[in-house]
C-alpha cells in the first residue's frame, strides 16, 4: 500500500540555502553546526597560541638579553629542516587562517541568530547565561581591535618613536610605560580572559567532547585557563608601570648589535 506522506507546512525559513553548494568537506562549513566546529577548532588553536605566547613573554622577567634570545630561538625554530624563520611563518600563517575563520564563523552565526531571535518587550531573565557568554560578541571585537594595535605597536613599531626591531624588552618597557597604553592592555586582556572563560567551555560542547564523568572539569579548565592568562598578561603592563621592567630607554640589543658590527669592522 502506498504510504500517505503529508509535508509539514511551516513558516518561511529564516535562513536560505547557500547559493553555491561547495564540494565536501567545504560544504560542512556552510552549515551552522559545521561553523561551530570550525569556531571550536580555531578557538582551540588560538587558545594554544595565547597560552604559549603568555608563557614565552615571562622571559621579560629574566632580562632584556634573555627575551631577545627567546625571540631569536623562535626565528631559529626548525632551521635544521627549513630556511630560517620558515617554520615560524608557517605557524603564523596557520594562526592568521584560524583567526580569519574564527571571526568569519562568529560573524556569520551571529547574523543567523539575530535573524532568528525576537526580543521580549516585557524583559527577560537570564538564569544560566553568564556575563562571559553574553558578552562574546563584544569581547571578540575588542580582542580583534586590540590585536591590531598590539601588532602595530610591538611588531611593526608604528606608534613607538623609540622602537628597536628585535628588542622586545626595550619596546615593551617603552610602550607600556605610557599610562593610556597600559590601561588599554589591561582592558583588552581582561576582555580576552572573559572571552576565554566562555570559549573554552563552549568549545567542548561545540566539538561534542562530552562525557558525563568528566563534564564538571570543563568549567574548572575554563576558569583556570582564563585566570592564568589574566594574571600572566596583566602582569606585564602592571610591572612596567611599577618599574620592574625598565631599561631606562637604553636598548641593550641595539648596543650589542652595534658592538658586533664595530667588531666586524676592526
Amino acid at each position, binding site marked *: 500500500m502506498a504510504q500517505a506522506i503529508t509535508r509539514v507546512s*511551516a513558516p518561511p525559513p529564516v535562513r536560505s540555502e547557500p547559493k553555491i553548494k561547495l564540494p*565536501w568537506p567545504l560544504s560542512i562549513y556552510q552549515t551552522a*553546526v559545521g561553523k561551530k*566546529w570550525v569556531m571550536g577548532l580555531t578557538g582551540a588553536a588560538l587558545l594554544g597560541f595565547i597560552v604559549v605566547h603568555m608563557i614565552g613573554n615571562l622571559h621579560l622577567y629574566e632580562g632584556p638579553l634573555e627575551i631577545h634570545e627567546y625571540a631569536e630561538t623562535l626565528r631559529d625554530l626548525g632551521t635544521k629542516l627549513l630556511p630560517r624563520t620558515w617554520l615560524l611563518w608557517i605557524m603564523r600563517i596557520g594562526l592568521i587562517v584560524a583567526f580569519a575563520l574564527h571571526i568569519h564563523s562568529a560573524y556569520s552565526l551571529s547574523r543567523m541568530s539575530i535573524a*532568528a*531571535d525576537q526580543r*521580549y518587550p516585557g524583559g527577560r531573565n537570564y538564569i544560566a547565561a553568564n556575563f562571559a557568554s*553574553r558578552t562574546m560578541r563584544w569581547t571578540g571585537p575588542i580582542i580583534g581591535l586590540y590585536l591590531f594595535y598590539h601588532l602595530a605597536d610591538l611588531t611593526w613599531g608604528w606608534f613607538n618613536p623609540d622602537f628597536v626591531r628585535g628588542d622586545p624588552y626595550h619596546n615593551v618597557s617603552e610602550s607600556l610605560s605610557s599610562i593610556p597604553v597600559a590601561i588599554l592592555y589591561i582592558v583588552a586582556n581582561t576582555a580576552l580572559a572573559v572571552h576565554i572563560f566562555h570559549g573554552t*567551555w563552549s568549545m567542548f*560542547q561545540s566539538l561534542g567532547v562530552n562525557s558525563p564523568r568528566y563534564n564538571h572539569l570543563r568549567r574548572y579548565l575554563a576558569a583556570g585557563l582564563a585566570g592564568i592568562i589574566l594574571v600572566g598578561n596583566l602582569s606585564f603592563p602592571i610591572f612596567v608601570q611599577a618599574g620592574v621592567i625598565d631599561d631606562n630607554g637604553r636598548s641593550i640589543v641595539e648596543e650589542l648589535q652595534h658592538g658586533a658590527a664595530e667588531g666586524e669592522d676592526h
Partner: protein
Amino acid sequence: MSAEINLTLKVWRQAGSSAEGRFVTYEANGISTDASFLEMLDIVNERLIEGGEEPIVFESDCREGICGTCGLMINGQAHGPQKGTATCQLHMRSFSDGDHIVIEPWRATSFPVLRDLAVDRRAMDAIIGAGGFISVNTGAAPDANLTPVPKETADTAFDAAACIGCGACVAACPNSAAQLFTAAKVQHLNLLPQGQAQRWARTEAMVETMEAFFGSCTNHGECEEACPKEIPIDFIAWTNRDYIKAKVKNRKLVG
C-alpha cells in the same frame, strides 16, 4: 492551606499574526493559591467574557505537563519561576499577594504569534518531519526483548525522549536556537538500536532543517534551565558530534 491572592497581570494582547501587539493590564483578584497558572488565566477569561471583552487566547491541552501544548513567558522566564515545570503545572502558590506578573508568548522569528499568547510552532514539526522517526516494517508486533537494550542506554534515551516539544528551549535561548529540542529528538532515537538504520540520515536532515528556522547555539545553557523536563545540554554536544560523523559517512552514499 489554601489562600487567596490578588495579582496584577500584564498580558500581551495581539489580535492576529499581522496585527500590532501590546501589553494590557488586568487585575486578577481573589485567585486561589491552589489554582494552576492556566486555571488562573481561565478565571481571568471568564471575568473578561462576563464583562463582554475578548478572552486571552492561550494554548493548553493535557494540563498535566506531558503534552507540551502550553508554554508562556512568565516574568521573563519560560514556563515561569519553578524549575522543571511546565506552565500548566505551575501553581499560584509560587506567587505572592500583590505580585505583578508579565505574561508573554514565546518569541522567535520562526514562532510567529497567532493571537495573544498562542504561537505557530510548525517549524518544530518540520524538524520532526525531517527525521524524527524510525521506519519499521508493519506486521505482527515483535517479541518483547527481541532487541536487547542496556539499562543505561535505555535510561539515557528516555531522558531525551522526555522532551514534550513545548518550545521553551527556543523561547529561553538568546539566539532562538532549537538545539536542545532537536538534540533530544535526534538522540532518543540515535541512542537506541532501533534508531541505528537511519541514524546518519536523520542527524543530517534534522539538524539542517533546524538551521533553516532557528538561530545558532552559543552554549549559554538557558534552554536546560527552562526545559520543563530538565533535559541536559549534553545531548546537544552528542548531536554536534553525530552531525560531523554524519557529514563524513553520508558523503559516500550520494552518487
